[in-house]
């Protein structure tokens, strides 16, 4: 499709004049919810010690906009605050592309990312090339992030992956157990995040590797927070879930399909910071991060997700409980 470029330029100029005014009038409202839950330290092996040298070093901790990420963002933020840093947070950054941009542009100092997401979305890895070993995957991302002027810290014990989920009832009815089984059911309505459309560990991968070309037609992008509600309400037959979701363990209501071609790789969390922030923050930064994530096993992460998604606890409170339960703060 091509059109007269001069006509286009004219259109552009007119639109620029009229709409620039409107855009200029719209400020961006950013929400900063600095948490004031720092506390003094106690003699415990894991306890975070407040270092007065760190006060005056301002860091902004970011996260993407779903439960697990927000809880992780809170854990890192509260731990660093306990170590004496001046912390503010921006825990609703949307998808990975937005979070990376915010980090590169210095709007945030650091945020938690999954190794698998980093490799497939940022560094153009094919899903089958993502190392299954957490340490190997971390080393791959570390080098690639370094090229972007970013520092990646070692991974968490737990890992998470995307999964194609559905009501157990539907799975039994259709007699499907793996993603390959969907080839005869491509008219099913699939719901996922807006960025799922372009992600290789999501819809794009289901098309490319499983050959499920029919799914896109019935794909509906929705807010990631509604991934269980769309199944409950009957809007979606299939929904993209996370393997660390509390709902998958607290009930038998939902089933995930086996990823028999390994297109949806699991990834551990790595905390990624800008080189500038890492340099400024000094040695306590890395020490605090590595220490505070030591106890984030799969069970613990699921439990934290459950407290927020099932028990409706505030993510900041769930994070604070984690820190005190494992003796990081009093």
């Amino acid at each position, binding site marked *: *499709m091509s059109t007269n470029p001069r006509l286009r330029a004219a259109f552009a100029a007119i639109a*620029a004049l009229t709409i620039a005014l409107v855009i200029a009038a719209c400020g961006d409202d950013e929400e900063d919810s600095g948490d004031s839950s720092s506390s003094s330290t106690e003699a415990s092996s894991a306890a975070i010690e407040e270092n007065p040298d760190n006060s005056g070093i301002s860091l902004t901790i970011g996260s993407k906009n779903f439960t697990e990420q927000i809880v992780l963002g809170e854990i890192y933020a509260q731990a660093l605050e306990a170590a004496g840093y001046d912390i503010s947070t921006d825990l609703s950054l949307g998808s990975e592309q937005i979070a990376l941009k915010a980090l590169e542009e210095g709007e945030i100092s650091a945020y938690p990312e999954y190794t698998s997401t980093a490799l497939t979305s940022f560094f153009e890895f094919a899903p089958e090339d993502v190392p299954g070993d957490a340490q190997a995957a971390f080393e791959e991302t570390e080098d690639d992030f370094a090229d972007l002027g970013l520092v990646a810290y070692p991974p968490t014990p737990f890992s998470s992956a995307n999964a194609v989920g559905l009501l157990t009832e539907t799975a039994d009815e259709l007699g499907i157990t793996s993603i390959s089984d969907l080839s005869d059911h491509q008219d099913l309505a699939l719901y996922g995040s807006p*960025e799922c*459309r372009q992600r290789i560990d999501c819809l794009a991968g289901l098309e490319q590797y499983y050959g499920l070309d029919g799914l896109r037609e019935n794909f509906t992008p929705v807010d990631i927070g509604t991934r269980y509600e769309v199944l409950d309400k009957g*809007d979606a037959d299939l929904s993209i879930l996370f393997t660390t979701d509390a709902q998958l363990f607290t009930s038998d209501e939902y089933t995930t399909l086996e990823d028999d071609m390994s297109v949806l790789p699991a990834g551990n969390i790595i905390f990624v910071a800008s080189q500038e922030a890492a340099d400024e923050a000094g040695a306590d930064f890395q020490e605090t991060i590595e220490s505070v994530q030591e106890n984030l096993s799969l069970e613990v992460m699921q439990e934290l997700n459950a407290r927020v998604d099932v028990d409706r606890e505030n993510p900041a409170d769930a994070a604070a409980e984690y820190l005190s339960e494992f003796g990081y703060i009093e």
Partner: protein
Amino acid sequence: MSVPVAGLLDSFTGSFDFIFDSREAVGGGLQVGGLEQVLELLWTQVWISALALAVAAAIALPVGIYLGHRGSGELLAVAIGNAGRAVPELALIAIMIAFVGVGVLNVTIALMVLGIPPILTNSFVGMRQVDRGTVEAARGMGMTTFEVIRKVELPLAVPTIMGGVRTGATNIVATATIAPLAGVLTLGDFILNRNVYGPDGVLAGAILVALLALAVELTLAAAQRLLTPRGIELEREQARATT
């Protein structure tokens, strides 16, 4: 001064390219933009808005016209009008996800709530402001209640009623931009998902929504003029001539 203007022009050129030619998404994996997708999303925005407007009109017009004719229920018409304007659409869509789920029903209800207030208030006021003497004269000629409404009050109230429909339609079509939050893909998809469409897509979406709202406004303004009885126009011209 010249540099920022050039930059602005660049981004507009980029967004127009986005409208006319498809390109790879920010994260790769698919082609986005281009006339085909633009028209598809535009069409969804138009029909979902038309649907919401039709439902809003079907509810608000009869009630407003009836109350205006009777000259009572002013409190009701005004209260609903004002309360309706204060409903936050985003919150409404979010709350309704819990009750009706995502999809067309959710968005239609949310947009309908936006359309009812101006239509209700204007049809009430339009009927109410018809000259009482004219209505009495019509009754004196032996017209039934229905005839009075249909032949006298309604034609005289049409300009005001259409004003309400016009406001409602513009509000609805502009707000339908947030429909993707409930899974209905309108032009807002470009604006809400910068991570897929990039900055050019965001700006392209904004331009298209602005043009669409403008087009709806102008079309309905023309319709309003067409529906205005000749008598009222003559009256207005006379009023203008004598002052």
